[in-house]
C-alpha cells in the first residue's frame, strides 16, 4: 500500500532535481542579453521590460 507513496516521492524528487539542473543550465548557457530582470520572479519594473519586448 505504501509502495505508491515511495514511487510518488521518487518522482517528485527526480522532478525537482531536473528542474534545478535546467535552471542552472539556463543560467550558465543563456547568452548575455543585458536583461537585468533575468531569473527574478518579477516586479513592476520587469513588467515594463516585458511590455517593451
Amino acid at each position, binding site marked *: *500500500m505504501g509502495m505508491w507513496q515511495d514511487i510518488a516521492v521518487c518522482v517528485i524528487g527526480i522532478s525537482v532535481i531536473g528542474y534545478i539542473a535546467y535552471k542552472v543550465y539556463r543560467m550558465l548557457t543563456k547568452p548575455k542579453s543585458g536583461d537585468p530582470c533575468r531569473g527574478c520572479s518579477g516586479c*513592476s519594473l520587469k513588467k515594463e521590460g516585458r511590455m517593451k519586448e
Partner: protein
Amino acid sequence: MGFIRGKEVIVIQNAPLKDPIHYRVMGYDVSLRRSDAALIEVVSAGDFEKEQASSIQDTNRSADSFILPFENELQAIAFHKGKTINVALVGNPNCGKTSLFNFASGAHEHVGNYSGVTVDAKEGTFQQNGYTFRIVDLPGTYSLSAYTPEELYVRKHLNEEQPDVVINVIDASNLERNLYLTTQLIDMDVRMVIALNMYDELERHGNKFDHESLAKMIGAPIIPTVSKTGFGIADLFNRVIKVYEEEDPVIRHIHINYGESLEKGISNVRKTLKNSVDIPKSLSKRYLSIKLLEGDREIEAFIRTLPGSETIFQERDRNTALIEKLLQEDCETAFTNARYGFISGALRETYEQNTIKEATSTQIIDLFVTHKVLGFPIFILFMWIMFEATFRLGGYPMEWIEALVEVTGNFVRGHMSEGPLKDLLVDGIIGGVGGVIVFLPNILILYMFISFMEDSGYMARAAFIMDKIMHKMGLHGKSFIPLVMGFGCNVPAIMASRTIESRNSRMITMLVNPLMSCSARLPVYVLLTGAFFPKNASFVLLALYVSGILLAVIMARLFKRFLFNEEDVPFVMELPPYRMPTGKSIMIHMWEKAKQYLHKMGGIILVASIIIWFLGYFPRHPESGDPFDRQIAEIENTASDSQEKTDAIKKLERLKAIDHQQNSYIGRIGQTIQPVLAPLGFDWKMSVSLLTGMAAKEVVVSTLSVLYMGNSDDGNQALPERLKQDRDTEGNWVFTPLIAISFMLFVLIYFPCIATISAIVNESGSWKWGIFVIAYTCVLAWIVSFIVYQTGNFFVGLFS
C-alpha cells in the same frame, strides 16, 4: 511633385555613383538625391514580406502571389502605415507623463511622486478615431543638454526614432521651468503638441492663462489636460491626428530669436554646416549650430566624424569668442538666458498669476515635515507607524491564513495513509510553503505604506530631510530614493541607482543597498519578534531597520574614504507638491507585490522546501536510532502503566527524532557549518536555514518551518511556539530573545539574495563587485552578531 499618399513609385535607375536616383511617379519622371528620397515613406516588397509572415493561413493564393504583391495589398499596407502615428512623450520629471501614458494606453506603469522613477522608456499602443498610436514614454528631463543619461537618452530617441509627433507634457503649475524644454524642442524642429497637464491646479490657484494665444505664438497647439482623471486626453490625441495629417491651423515652424549677437553666430556656423553634405536632412542645421555654440559634447563628437570638421570647429570657435566678448558671459549661459527671456516675454502676454497669495497646503505641510528640528522625528514617527501597522494590523489576516494552513495540514494528516508522501506533503510542502505564505498580509501592508509615501510626495521630503545625513555618508540626496526603494526589494532599488550621475555615488549606493532591509526579510522578523518580543514588536522592527540604515551609513563612509574618494558634483532635489494618491494606484502596487510573492511561493520556496525535506528525511533508519528503539521497547514491556512510563517514552521519542534529524543529510550539513556560527549562538538548524536563505530570504522561514514541523509532540503547534520550546539534547533552550536578536541582525546584513547579486553585477558591469558584496556582507553580519550575542551574554551572566 506626385509623391503623395497611395501613389506607386517605380525606381527606373541609379545615376553613375548611385546618386541621384531616377523615379517615375504618376506618369512622369523625376530624379531625387538619396538624402531627399530618405524623407519619403514608402511601402516596399520588404514590408509586404513582413505582412506575409503573419498571414500564411491563406491557402487559396498561388505561389507567385507570395513573392510579388498585388497593388491593392501594397496600398492597404501603406494605408495602415499611414494610420499609425508614432508619438513620444517628453517633459520634466513629475509633470504627469507616465500618468498620461497609463491613462492613454491602459498600462499599469509605476508612477512615483519623485523624480527618477522612469529610468527607461516604456511603450504602449491604443486606438482613437481609426488611428493607432504607438506611444513611447521617455524619461523625465529638464532640458536637452548632454549632461545626464536621461537627457542623452531622450535626444537619441528623438534623433534616431524620429517620432511623427512629440507630445510635450508641461506642468501648468510651473510654466516657466517647464517651457524651457519646450524651447529646446522648438530648436530641434520637431512636430509638437503641448499637453498643459495638471490644468486643474492652475485653475484652483485662480491663475489665468491664455494658452491659445501662446500656442499661436510658438506654433504648437496647447491642450489642457488632467492626466489623473483623463480630462482632455481624447482632445489631445485628436489634435495629434490633425498635426500628423498637416491639417492643424496653429502648427508652424518658428525660430526663437536669441538676440543679434547669438543669431549672427548661429547664422555663421550654419553656413559652414550647409557645405557639409554628410549631415542628414532630418537634422536641423540651426539646431546643430546652436548646440555647437553651446559646446555640446555629443554634437561635437558627431561633427568630428564629418569630413571638413576642422573648418566647422574653427568657425564655431571664432563665433564663440566673439559672442563671449560682446556679451561678457559664456555662450551656454547666454543661450539659457535668452530662452528664459523668450519664455518670460511670452508669459507676460498670456499668463496672469493670482495676486492673492495664499499659503498652499503643500507649503503648510512642509513647514513641519521639512523643519530642521521637527523633520527627522516626524520621519521616524511615520516609520514607526508603518511598522506598527505592519505588525498589528497584519496579525489578524495572518491568523486566518495560519488557521487555513493548519486545517489543510490536518486534513492531509487525517485522510492519508502513513508513508513518505504524506510526510512530504505535511512536513515539507505545507510546512515549508505554509510557513512563509502566512506573512503575505504583513508584506502587503508594508508595501501599501511605501506606495502611499511615494505617490503622495512625502518620499521626496524624506530625501530632503536625509540630505544632510546622506552628505555625511558621502552620498547625494538623490541616493536616498534608491536606498528607500530597497525597503521593498533591493533589485529594483539597485536598478534605480542609474539616475545618479556620479559613478562613485552610484557604486556606493549599490554596495550599501543590501543593508536596506528588504520585504523578503520581514517574515523572519515577524516570526521572531512575534515569538520573543510580542509586546514590543514594532520597536524591535524599527530598531532593525534603523540598524540597517546606520550600518549603511558607516559602510558608505568607509567605501567613500577607501574605495571611491572622488569629489561629488552638486545636484538639484525636486520637491513636488503633495498629492493625494488614488486608491487605485495603491491597490495596483499591492496587487503587483502579492502576485510576485505568490509566484515565489510556487517557485523557489516550494522547491527549497521539498529539497530541505528530502535532506532532512533521508537516510532512513540510521543505526544510531537503534538504542532509542531498544530503550522504548524495554519501557513498553514493563508491567507498570503509569504517567511516568508515558513521559519516559515521549522523552525517548523526542530524543530519537532529534537524533534522526541530526544524522540526516541536512543535519550533517548543518553540523559542518555550525562551528562557524556557534559563537553567534546559532545551532545547526539555524545555520542550515541561513545557508538556504542565500537563495531567497523567505526560505530562512520555510527551512525553519520544515525542520521544526516534525519535532513537536503536538502536531498542531504553530512555528513560533515550537521555536520557543525547542531544547537541545542537554535540555537548554535553543532560542532565547538574545539569540533571536543576533539571528535577525545576521539575516539583516548577510549575503543578499542571488537576484540582488545579479543586479549588482549587471549595473556595475563587473563580477568583482558581486563577489565583494557577498564577502563584506557575510563578514559584517558575523562581526555584528558576534558582538551583540557575546556582549548580551556577558550582561545576562552578570545579572543572573
